[in-house]
């Protein structure tokens, strides 16, 4: 128990130090590129909590990357390096756009049905790399990346050819039906109930991983594939289920993002949300609640950077520095390890002294 606490403590300290270091470096970069570095830095850090609308922005931003993080973390946890959530987001966005313009007009049923169709579609698409991985051990990293580009091409073609709106000059789908729109959750912001759904899915994911048989076999397979095989677990069924669930969550995230934040489908490039999901899964150590926390953190930084970019001369992409440094430091096994070893050694000495 004692050891467990010190493990958790160590992770917390490590994360805090990593955040501090990335902030210091960010400040140095701001000094280089901005005429008003202090102002910019201050905005980056505090802007999101200055207005309820801004904080709402953080929650909105958190939703799609949170879903993407959960979807990806499930794959990572099983030991699958699949980065296909990006493509799933795109193609499920197209599906959502198609479905959302043809609904019944019932404000309760429409969003649920749209999201469900998109989710199932995402799950089915994810079965493609899943099947080839399970059956032929095909390199899922390469397959999923190729699929991202392929799904993007197909999706964009579909949008342009079949559901393109004639009333707007840019490439966009027809308008979604009003009834498909997700209800606002915090008045005065655009924060929709997707946030609640994200929380629910996070909890469900936790239960799946730590309370169910499937979760047990996911964890064991991820920790040691040979051990899982030796124990009699079928990688084939497992890989298929995991891919389906991951694609399902991805499709859900994409659909919720579009129904909550958009009136039409307007993505003419890959949205980048899936890749961010991989970052978030990594930062959250593939633990559902860790992922939730990481998605909040990244959303906070991105919204801070966004507000900063509106009022200063620094572009929003500034957030990339903070994110990259965070990933490297938090993923590192050796960062702060010496400090920890020394403190463990001291603990050990103390323990020895008293015994």
């Amino acid at each position, binding site marked *: 128990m004692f050891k467990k606490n010190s493990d958790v403590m160590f992770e917390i300290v490590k994360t805090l130090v990593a955040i501090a270091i990335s902030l210091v470096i960010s400040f140095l970069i701001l000094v280089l590129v901005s005429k008003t570095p202090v102002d910019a830095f201050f905005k980056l850090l505090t802007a999101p909590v200055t207005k309820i609308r801004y904080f709402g922005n953080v929650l909105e931003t958190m939703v799609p990357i949170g879903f993407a993080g959960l979807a990806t973390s499930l794959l990572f946890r099983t030991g699958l390096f699949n980065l296909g959530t990006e493509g799933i987001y795109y193609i499920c966005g197209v599906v959502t756009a198609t479905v959302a313009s043809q609904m019944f007009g019932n404000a309760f049923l429409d969003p649920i049905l749209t999201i469900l169709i998109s989710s199932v579609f995402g799950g089915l698409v994810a079965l493609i790399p899943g099947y080839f991985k399970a059956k032929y051990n095909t390199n899922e990293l390469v397959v999923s990346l190729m699929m991202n580009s392929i799904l993007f091409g197909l999706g964009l073609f579909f949008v342009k050819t079949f559901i393109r709106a004639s009333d707007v000059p840019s490439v966009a789908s027809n308008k979604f039906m009003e009834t498909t729109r997700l209800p606002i959750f915090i008045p005065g912001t655009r924060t929709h109930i997707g946030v609640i759904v994200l929380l629910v899915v996070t909890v469900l994911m936790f239960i799946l991983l730590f309370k169910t048989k499937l979760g*047990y076999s996911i*964890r064991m397979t991820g920790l040691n594939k040979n*051990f899982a*095989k030796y124990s009699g677990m079928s990688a084939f069924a497992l890989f298929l289920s995991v891919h389906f669930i991951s694609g399902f969550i991805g499709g859900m995230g994409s659909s919720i993002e579009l129904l909550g934040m958009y009136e039409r489908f307007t993505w003419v490039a890959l949205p980048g949300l899936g890749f961010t999901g991989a970052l978030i899964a990594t930062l959250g150590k593939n633990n559902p609640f860790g992922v939730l926390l990481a998605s909040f953190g990244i959303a906070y930084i991105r919204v801070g950077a966004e507000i900063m970019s509106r009022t200063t001369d620094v572009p929003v992409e500034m957030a990339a520095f903070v994110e990259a440094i965070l990933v490297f430091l938090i993923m590192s096994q050796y960062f702060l390890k010496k400090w920890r070893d020394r403190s463990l050694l001291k603990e050990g000495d103390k323990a020895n002294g008293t015994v």
Partner: protein
Amino acid sequence: MDDIILSLQEITKVYDNGVFANRKVSIDFKKGEIHSVVGENGAGKSTIMKIAFGMEKQSEGQIVYKGKPVQFENSMEAIKLGIGMVHQHFMLIPSFTVAQSIVLGNEPVKNKFFVDYNQATKKATELAKKYNFEIDVKAKIETLSVGAKQKVEILKTLYQDAEVIILDEPTAVLTPQETDALFIELKKFRELGHTVIFISHKLNEVKQISDRITIMKNGESCGTYNACDISIEKMTELIVGRELSTSFEDIKKKLDNTKAVLAVENLEIKTTKKHTLNNINFTVKSGEILGIAGVQGNGQSELIQAIAGMRSFTSGSIHLNDVDISTIPIKQRRQKGLAYIPEDRMQDGIAANASISDNIISTYYDSPEISGKVFMKNKSIRTIADNLISKFSVKTTSAKTKIGSLSGGNIQKVVVAREYQTDPQLLIAEQPTRGIDIGSANFIHNQLIDLRNEGRAILLVSADLTEVMDLSDKLIVMYDGEIVAYFESTNDVTDKDLGLYMLGVKKQSEEEIRRAYRV
């Protein structure tokens, strides 16, 4: 004392996790002697040698080589000074040729940057000739036998001009005959002025080959003796502090009404190149331990994997309690009563980063006892885990501890506990006590006998001849993918004969081998 070439002085090694591997160990090695370092597994022999070879750094103490204190940052520095090491696990790359492997790290070059492969082949050939090693230097490592691979390892150290050659448990993988050949070579090295450091836990070998012997226990040295001054009994006493009991005959129950639990018929594994397994026929009956002896790499692993369902085979059949299990998945084999202690526990037997309780249920996690249709019954799991931990005396504070943080012996106890929990009809025990402490090994040996006495069938594979000979009721010898001998009792064969069968020099007649298949 100027004939001392290498002197380890008060070496202490503490690992990061606070484990003491060595405590104030001092050993002097003389020029031109064969000096054995003996002790049971975990006594710190390998660690002290890794320190002498620069692979590990000592926490305290110093190394004096040829009268000068030295500090090795890595093994390259030790190699440069003339210390070579043949590791227990060979450090060879399968796709490289013998010549490439020998010169690797110190290649002959032309034009400064390019490897002179002709020169490499020539040098390797000359070296092999000089020391009377018969080996094709152009062959790929993957095509060599274990004994030949070891020769390559020794040639590597000689190529690097090693004056001190450390051999870590070199005979563990050899047949008695190959061991004899190795000893002749070692004596030749001594004549040529090399110092040979021989690490082993096989006392009769040590007694036979050494000039001097250092005994280690619990990370400390118990002194260095002239080989002629110390008896095997005395060594045993120093090493374990008590007499080894090796006979299980008195605790083996006599059982009636036995029947064949496992029946393997005409099993064959054929690859494009050759037969890995051919014409395998045998049965294991209830209430008996069938041992499989053989030099590693003669098809035992493949046979076990085929029975356990870890790999497919070309033809033949496997029956468990008269049910054909040849093609059914691992899970169903287990449900039909098969349990399996795998050879490599870290690779197959556990997930090191998961808790003990996660590891102790893996092979029956979906049995109704501990899981429903969807959810796991965490309470029952906890109870089972706690029970097993106390029943198999696994030393840990809690079932939630990461299994990877336990010692090898305790990890193996968890594996055994798990396999026993399903009350198996057939237990396959592959190298069940490899690399674990003697207390845990004894415990596991007794567990195996208990299971046998309960009327279960046990198939035992071990590279440790003593273990197979002590535990088994019946014995099979495998060579080159075939069964070459079957013995109704381990008393029917001498060590020397066993060696001849293991090497493929002797082979029983077809009828004699057929006896292994008993109905």
